[in-house]
């Protein structure tokens, strides 16, 4: 009887502590979203009682949430801006950074578009509005419809810095709130062009080979080309977290960095951090 009582109490205690395992909120980059969702699902399967909620919205949204304390982990496809660092400092947040994976940024067009390769200069011309017709870059006589992410997106910032050399997007560019929306729009619009993380490329869009040596060599966005650095549009994907949230979030961060977590990175379509 005594043993039964002890066992019952122990079981209750265990269940309470299991139940009391921390709930982690992860917010931010749409680029990171499919990866972190999959990591979270597998982590929760392996760790009963763990609860991780993953929300997109863009890198800027995640970083803002970190500033105002409404997320434990911010996922981002860009580094922190100086203004953000100063705001986080002002908010008393000691922010730590870790790279969870790398991502190749793929330029996509409609499958019906015969253009399958573009130089960086041509991409700059298209996305800044200087080149308005596909015939100017070897395609059909068809207006170019440019799709871009919104300004809160790290992908938006990275594409602007790396491909447009910090020039302004065309005022006619259609700003989409999520990566999935770009894929859908490009798949449905014959003259459309957009940019998405490699993991988002589906069969209903065509990815374009890119040249950063004025047309001498064109390289497609693939895992192998990103890993061997022959594909030029690759960026790290970050977790930002505060020292205050570290104890709660570290087990999940460590899981993502582990061999199993990096296997998931590759499986979902990103580039693992290993050599």
């Amino acid at each position, binding site marked *: 009887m005594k043993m039964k009582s002890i066992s019952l109490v122990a079981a209750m205690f265990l269940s309470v502590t299991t139940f009391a395992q921390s709930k982690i909120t992860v917010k931010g980059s749409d680029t990171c979203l499919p990866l972190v969702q999959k990591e979270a699902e597998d982590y929760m399967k392996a760790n009963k009682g763990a609860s991780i909620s993953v929300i997109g919205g863009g890198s800027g949204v995640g970083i803002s949430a970190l*500033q*105002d*304390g409404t997320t434990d982990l911010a996922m981002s496809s860009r*580094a*922190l*801006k*100086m*203004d953000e*660092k*100063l705001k986080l*400092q*002002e*908010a*008393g*947040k*000691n*922010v*730590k950074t870790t790279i969870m994976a790398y991502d190749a940024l793929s330029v996509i067009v409609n499958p019906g578009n015969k253009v399958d390769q573009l130089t960086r200069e041509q991409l700059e011309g298209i996305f800044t509005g200087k080149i308005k017709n596909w015939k100017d870059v070897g395609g059909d006589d068809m207006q170019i419809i440019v799709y871009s992410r919104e*300004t809160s997106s790290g992908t938006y910032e990275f594409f602007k810095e790396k491909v447009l050399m*910090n*020039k*302004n*997007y065309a*005022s006619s560019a259609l*700003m989409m709130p999520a990566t999935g929306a770009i894929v859908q729009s490009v798949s449905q619009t014959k003259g459309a062009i957009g940019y998405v993380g490699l993991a988002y490329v589906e069969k209903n869009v065509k990815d374009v080979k890119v040249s950063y040596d004025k047309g001498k060599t064109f390289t497609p966005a693939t895992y192998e080309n990103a890993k061997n650095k022959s594909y030029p549009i690759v960026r790290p994907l970050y977790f930002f977290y505060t*020292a205050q949230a570290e104890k709660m979030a570290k087990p999940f961060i460590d899981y993502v960095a582990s061999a199993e977590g990096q296997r998931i990175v590759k499986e979902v379509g990103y580039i693992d951090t290993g050599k």
Partner: protein
Amino acid sequence: MPINPEWLFCNAQKNKHMKQNLTKILLVLTLFSATLAKAQQNEPDTLRSTVAQIASDLDLLKRIKITGYIQAQFQYADSAGQASFAGGNFASGVDKRFMIRRGRLKAQYDGAVSAKGWSLSQYVLQFDVTERGMTIKDAYAKLTDPWCGWVSLTAGMQNRPFGFEIPFSSSLRESPERGRMSQIIFPNERDLGAMVSLQGPKTGHWNWIKLDGGMFNGTGAPGAGANTADFDKYKDFIGHLAINRTAMHEKIKYGLGGSIYHGSFVSDTAFVYTPGQPKDSTGTPIDGFVKSPDKNKKGVEEKRKYFGGDVQFSIDWIIGITTLRGEYIQGDQPGTSKTTVSPAAIFPAGDGIYRRKFNGMYLYFVQNVLTTPLSLVVKYDLYDPNTDISGDAIGKTGSNTSANDLAYSTLGFGLIYRWDANLKIVLYYDWVTNEKSKNLKGYEKDLKDNVITARVQVKF
């Protein structure tokens, strides 16, 4: 065996009832299925419209922002009853005080966002509530053009667009107070007027450059209980050109600015004193002010002209974020023998106007300690209200100079601890040094006017 007709009849009746009941059951089941199917179809429609309504309501609510902060502090001065720019003069006999230095409540409403992604209007109302009373700090509307997002018009009570320290929020500033010069030439920071700003949208290529230019009353914002309605026909122009950029992949941030103030106010004072060589009792020319020969200089336009340059630099490196800031201002500041503070009302007729040339500057060094919530701050500010005279020449008989012509420097040391996003603790020491003159009673040596400030700021 013969068949009983009665049994047959009952059976037939039973079957008939059964058939009827079965039909009824089938009918009910069919109706139920149809209702269920329709309900299932209605559910997503209802959910969608509910979510859309909630999203719409949330969008409206997100346009309203209520923010504020309270700065409560304890101060200990070197001596009782001293004049101070560390939060106002100490009352007679008082060398220690608790005070609510600032109690701000700000309401901001952002209007509809244009198709191109920027807010077309903004309305701001901000109050300051302390034990000394309540005043309006901001009451303005800002409108932005919907075509290119470059041009904004701001009208109402707002920060004067001069330099860096004036518009920089007191909740963010590392030292408890602005420099002495800023408090003298721009008391209460705000003024009533209308300003046009040119700055590209945040997503644009030219967002890093900003030009502000506006016309203002020149009297400044009201202090507690004070009325600062304009007292003359002259309006003052204030302009500021600034650039802000980052470099080295967001490791460095820097800014540069240039400012101009071109204004004037009416004076009904009896005499005008201009820098020159008045004669002492022996008839020897000395440095000082020369009194105008004519009395009753009513309606004279007195010029206020300032020119300033400001620079800011921040670097994120191995020891944490280091920030350096500096600003220099010089110009013409008419005052009286009793004050060099910019006037909020017409000067008393009995006194004279003293036309002084001034200059001043401040330097900030702020070091965040690694990524901890701790920061160290060192600030040096200098204000010379009269650059035409210095040292023992001040206060000489016949010079027409006074203590208001003495230069001051303040060296400040501070420690800031950010408890969390809402709470900040500041410990700060102001080491004030005044210019000395053996000819000015009470100023033969440095005044005992240093101040220690311990402040808690709560911000929401």
